[in-house]
């Protein structure tokens, strides 16, 4: 199954037989006080720096989140999206849980966007899916519902099934659905990542869907997080994860993802791997 994301001029494909899709997560003011103040004052210049760094780091798609408390998020998000699209041809993942902001973002966006995100909660699906349908977008759905994050892979599969049925009911093709199998912190629960991997496996077996997640969650609260993330992603990829939202600036993780592409047969004859190596060599 191929999930296609597009900007005005570029298409990015997510699938189990193509290279992993890295969604650069940095264009997000959460936890960045200075960036928040700038955005509140209408200064969007930091976005340009973030875009450049994520693109240089090898992001395939850019997540844009403008969740600044006490601001007009729909307006801010639509301005940010226009700015990002003027700086790069990478497709965008429009990130908000405010419906009006998603609507404004989708209206401002040129292409086929990824919408981040909804859950298996009935009221969320009823509000978001019509927008996804109207704008011919792709929806990312978390495998949890109003009762919280299910502790077992089986329960996450059941919620995924409910999401699949609802998406179908709205006439949205299943390739336009990306499931987030939920990465929890291994530092808080020793079994957490095993459950995530099992969830990925079950969803791939049963529905063949594309999946993406905030991968850095797994290492929260631990030392040397990059190494943990760089080990986690290839395991998840081998199990069926086809994309992740992560900070593309971390070279160690990006390299490990591209090596896994090669090892899983998704980089024929090592074309991408070898050209990346060559690009690093000082020119003769």
């Amino acid at each position: 199954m191929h999930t296609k994301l597009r900007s005005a001029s570029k298409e990015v494909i997510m699938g189990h037989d193509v290279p992993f899709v890295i969604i650069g997560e940095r264009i997000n003011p959460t936890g960045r006080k200075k960036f928040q103040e700038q955005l509140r004052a209408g200064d969007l210049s930091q976005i340009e720096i973030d875009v450049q760094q994520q693109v240089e780091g090898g992001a395939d798609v850019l997540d844009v989140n403008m969740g600044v408390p006490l601001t007009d998020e729909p307006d801010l998000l639509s301005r940010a999206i226009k700015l990002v699209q003027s700086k790069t041809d990478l497709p965008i993942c429009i990130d908000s849980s405010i419906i009006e902001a998603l609507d404004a973002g989708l209206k401002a966006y040129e292409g086929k966007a990824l919408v981040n995100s909804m859950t298996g909660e009935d009221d969320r699906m009823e509000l978001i899916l019509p927008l996804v349908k109207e704008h011919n977008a792709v929806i990312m759905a978390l495998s949890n519902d109003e009762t919280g994050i299910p502790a077992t892979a089986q329960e996450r599969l059941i919620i995924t099934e409910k999401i699949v049925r609802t998406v179908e009911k709205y006439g949205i093709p299943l390739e336009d659905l990306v499931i987030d199998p939920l990465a929890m912190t291994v530092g808080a629960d020793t079994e957490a990542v095993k459950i995530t991997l099992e969830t990925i496996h079950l969803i791939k077996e049963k529905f063949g869907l594309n999946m993406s997640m905030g991968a850095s969650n797994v290492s929260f609260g631990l030392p040397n997080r990059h190494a943990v993330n760089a080990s986690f992603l290839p395991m998840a990829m081998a199990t069926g994860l086809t994309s992740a939202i992560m900070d593309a600036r971390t070279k160690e993780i990006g390299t490990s993802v591209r090596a896994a592409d090669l090892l899983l047969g998704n980089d024929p004859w090592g074309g991408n791997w070898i050209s990346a190596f060559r690009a690093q060599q000082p020119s003769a």
Partner: protein
Amino acid sequence: MTYEEILKALYEETMVGNAPRVLELTNQGIADGMTPDSILFEALIPSLEEVGARFERGDFFVPEMLIAGRAMAGALNVLRPLLADTGAETVGTFLMGTVKGDVHDIGKNLVNIMLEGAGFQVIDLGVQVPPEKFVEAVKEHKPDIVGMSAFLTTTMPMFKVNIHELTKAGMRDEVIVMVGGAPVTQEYADAVGADGYAADASTAVRKAKELIKAKRQLAKA
């Protein structure tokens, strides 16, 4: 083992999260005639304080804090009924929950551990707690403080909703409201009308103690 040795061993075993050993030592201490107060205030609480300090400095990590908290919780199960018998004044009761729409609980759980470690009685409502549940729980448990946690900028507005519901129920003045979570700032806490905010678990405990002290003094005056 002498009392001294038991206290020292309790302090050390709690810090490394050796729950079975902490439970054993607690039972042994009680059997030998130590007071629950002594075990709590001379070993467990200082140990958890040190864990919190190390965490704050970046020398301790989340799993270490969680297992230390769990080791202490095991001992508290033994001590709590005994402490109740002595009628000692509690540090305070803290009602805690992650707001509606938000399932993040690691930060909240760390704060719970530090609060329990400091002698608070903690009632945890879990995650995705709707406003009406906060109100009901405040009515039922009459806590000194209600703590609300949010990890997302999109769920932070629930603080204001919850506080509004408490006001509507006529209970806002009866309880101290503290808020926290990754995206929350002092400025935001002020804007939604909370009484307190802290950036991390250790500071939250200090802040909670301060707020309770101020409120109790006010009540006496």
